[in-house]
């Protein structure tokens, strides 16, 4: 038993050092969503250290005090049935702890499922993120551009990722900006995030998706507003258009480096809407609702970037998109709920 004390002391001190360690991506957030999660994690670690301390102190106490020694040779312990009061204590206190953590969980889950409090007056920048084999496609319907294996976004701007997959289930994760969320072939999932520090962050697929899974990383670059606008402008001027032919070629490839296009694949290959009608390829009618309602409770109706005239997305953002977000009553009630 003696050998174990220092070992655990070492481990406990390591846990305590955690928050100060900058290489720990999850505890080094660069945006409100990741910060909420980081705070939740640190809080839960502290509560759990309390629980551990109680168990460990009791444990060491009974092991030291009641071990078989020469002095208690022949001692036969008395029969002891249990104690209602004591047992009630170690039922009720854990219930209180769990209740407290439940409140924290419900509150923070709602926070990160929606636009962060500081950014609620903004219209989120919508980016469609879709995976195919071992690469990521990022489509910016408002800007009419598309990138492969990297994503750029402006700082201090609410961003809304809408994820889906052209194959296996994947999970989009930029640890320093937000928690992960799955991308599946038959529904759209939504991830809200925003960055408050410029910089380059690692993004990855967190869900095992076969042979090339380990290489499925991308760069998330957070630029100044000016930098972002310049980049968009440059892309639109210099990058080629993404044709259906070209896109099919991209889908068929296993791995790719970075690619940039001045149009999106959403026009000829719309994201999944309801069951059955997705991936049909030829559907011109864009189904931009938020996935299958059966699968999602997150039923906010987002301003649809649907082109007014049924033509391609053009360079000018659709006027509808610039409407302030809390335009629908559904939205307002969801935001006030927490």
């Amino acid at each position, binding site marked *: *038993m003696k050998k*174990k004390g220092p*070992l*655990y002391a070492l*481990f406990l001190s*390591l846990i305590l050092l955690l928050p100060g360690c900058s290489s*720990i*991506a999850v505890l080094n957030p660069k945006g409100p969503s990741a910060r*909420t*999660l*980081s705070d939740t*994690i640190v809080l*839960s670690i502290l509560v*759990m250290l309390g629980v551990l301390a109680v*168990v*460990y102190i*009791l*444990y060491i106490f*009974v*092991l030291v005090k*009641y*071990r078989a020694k020469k002095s208690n040779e022949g001692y036969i*312990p*008395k*029969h*002891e049935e*249990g*104690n209602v009061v*004591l*047992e009630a204590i*170690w*039922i009720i206190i854990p*219930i209180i702890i*769990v209740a407290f953590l*439940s409140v*924290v*969980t419900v509150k*923070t*889950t709602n*926070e*990160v499922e929606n636009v962060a409090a500081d950014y609620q007056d903004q219209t989120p920048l919508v980016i469609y993120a879709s995976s195919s084999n071992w690469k990521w496609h990022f489509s910016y319907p408002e800007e009419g551009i598309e990138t492969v294996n990297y994503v750029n976004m402006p700082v201090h701007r609410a961003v809304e990722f809408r994820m889906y997959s052209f*194959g*296996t*289930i994947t*999970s989009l994760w930029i640890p320093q900006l937000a*928690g*992960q*969320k799955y991308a*599946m*072939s*038959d529904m759209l*999932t*939504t991830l809200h995030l925003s960055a408050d520090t410029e910089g380059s962050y690692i993004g*990855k697929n*967190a869900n*095992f998706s*076969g042979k090339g899974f*380990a290489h499925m990383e991308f760069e998330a670059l957070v630029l100044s507003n000016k930098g972002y606008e310049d980049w968009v402008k440059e892309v639109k001027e210099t990058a080629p258009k993404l044709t259906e032919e070209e896109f099919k070629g991209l889908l068929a490839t296993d791995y790719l480096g970075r690619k940039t296009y001045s149009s999106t694949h959403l026009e000829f290959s719309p994201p999944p809407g309801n069951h059955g009608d997705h991936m049909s390829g030829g559907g011109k009618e864009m189904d931009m609702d938020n*996935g299958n309602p059966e*699968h999602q409770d997150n039923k906010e109706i987002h301003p649809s970037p649907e082109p007014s005239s049924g033509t391609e997305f053009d360079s000018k953002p659709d006027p509808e998109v610039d409407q302030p977000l809390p335009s629908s009553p559904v939205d307002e009630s969801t935001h006030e709920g927490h």
Partner: protein
Amino acid sequence: MDLDKFKVHGEPLIYGAMISIALATIGILVGLTYFKKWGYLWREWLTTVDHKKIGIMYILAALLMLFRGGVDAMMMRLQTAAPEMKFLDAQHYNEVFTTHGLIMILFMAMPFIIGLMNVIIPLQIGARDVAFPRLNAVSFWLFFMGAMLLNISFVIGGSPDAGWSAYFPLASLEFSPTVGNNYYSLALQISGIGTLITGVNFIVTILKMRAPGMTLMKMPMFTWSVLITNVIIVFAFPVLTVALAMMMFDRLFGSQFFTMANGGMDMLWANLFWVWGHPEVYIVILPAFGIYSEIIATFSKKNLYGYTSMVFSMLIISLLSFLVWAHHFYTMGQGAMVNSFFSITTMAIAVPTGVKIFNWLFTLRKGRITFTTPMLYTLAFIPIFTIGGVTGVMLAMASADYQYHNTMFLVAHFHYVLIPGAVFAVIAGFHYWFPKVFGFRLNERLGKHAFWWIIISFNVTFFPLFFLGLMGMTRRMYTYSEESGFGPLNMLSFVGAVGLAIGFVILVYNIYWSTRYMPRDTTNDPWDGRTLEWATHSPIPLYNFAVVPKVETRDALWSAKHENIPLYTDTKYTKIHMPSNTGKPFILGVVFFFLGFFLVFSMWIPAIVSGIGILVVLAFMSFDKDQGYYIPVEEIAATEKKLMRGETV
């Protein structure tokens, strides 16, 4: 027929494995012939219906699988020990972690526990065998053949490679075109049927065959845990059976339950899998709680503190285990409401688990604690499992899980739960009950050596993974770059894994050494036990108890020894009815193996023949008129006399 399907891709490691498997098989066959042991093997083991021998076979198979799964684990830790390692390629690594998970959960932890319960439960409740001894043999052979089917996948055709959870559409024919996942659906199906039968068998055994006077609330805690576990098995395994059948139809016959097109739903697989998969975790952990309860009571010389709340906590855990599966989908966009509900049910499991921890601590309080090897594993379980438990609560918080999901943090958590919660438990139970089954103890000094290696190395291996998870390392990555900074901690973890391997080698050496040199135990009760299994001889005679004991208190033997409450009021022998051995369960298992194998490779005609073969064997079994036999009184008297003198029979 396309012979290429049987080949696995050319890698020296796999060829090495093939050669060693072939050599070992030839060695065993030659050895059996040379020592003329074929008859012995058939009469004593392959055809046995004795619960003790079936239990021993389960445990042997589990130890074998522990070795296989352990080698997989070593290969994984070696491959990730440093950035850009070139030991395994992606495909091979994927197969290794998939089979590591499958084998450790389904073919190591579960059979080890089923083995212990086979050996011990009838003894603990004062019964002569399980309720359906021949069905018990069927269970074992189905499990064993399922395990073998999965294992040959490594050298014939290729192993499953879509993870042990085999999420669709990744596991579909489109994205996993090799036969690997056919093996998955068939091997798990065959052994799963065996497990389901075990569940039924043990529920009936425990409910109907207890010694006179043993009411439900006088059952030993291990018996309680096994009863609850088997209820979970009976509720959970049919879900797996259906899910695997659908998977088989998808992969072999082109149905579209889980595919991307034609209305298939990948989420349906995920839901079915975890509706079974989460209770499965408690199937391996609840019996461990039972084992620890027995050991703590024995080695602190006290009755279990808070017996009633222990029973109720297990009942509540079993109920909650079916209400938490969606915590695997926090990150699937199911919305804040659903996530909140499953967060709360998941965290709620911590309450009954905490009750058990405190009850154990209070059992130790005012006891007289001796540190034997089984007790050391039990005592090490408490602090380590508590870390696993509190990190489980952290993971249960849906929002925080967005950051832990699919990362090494999760991997660390479930190893911190499953290794102390299942592996230490079966090792502790193995050391604890070994003298009962074989009549001698394992060496304590070697046992403690192995213990310290295993405990320290375990923490060195898995604690760094918590940090790796928070640093952003996802699970199932076969390689990573230097810049990621994952290198040093992974190397530390590899060092720990080597230590763990050394610990297990010492453990196995201890079995060998003790078999040769440990003195035979003549007391039948080397630990001063409390429950009925210690009231019979060691090794145990075929009929377990010459006279069925009578139970008045929870710790019946303890009361008999220390409180003068006699176990036997009537000591006259009567003839004992026993079931006869039969080879049909073994043959049934073999035919199932062939059915599975032919289906894996879509060889329809032999598969149909095997399918008919199964029906034929079943028909023979159902028309079997063998009603067993009686052991005459004189024979019992003679055996008892010999056993009293300390001779083996």
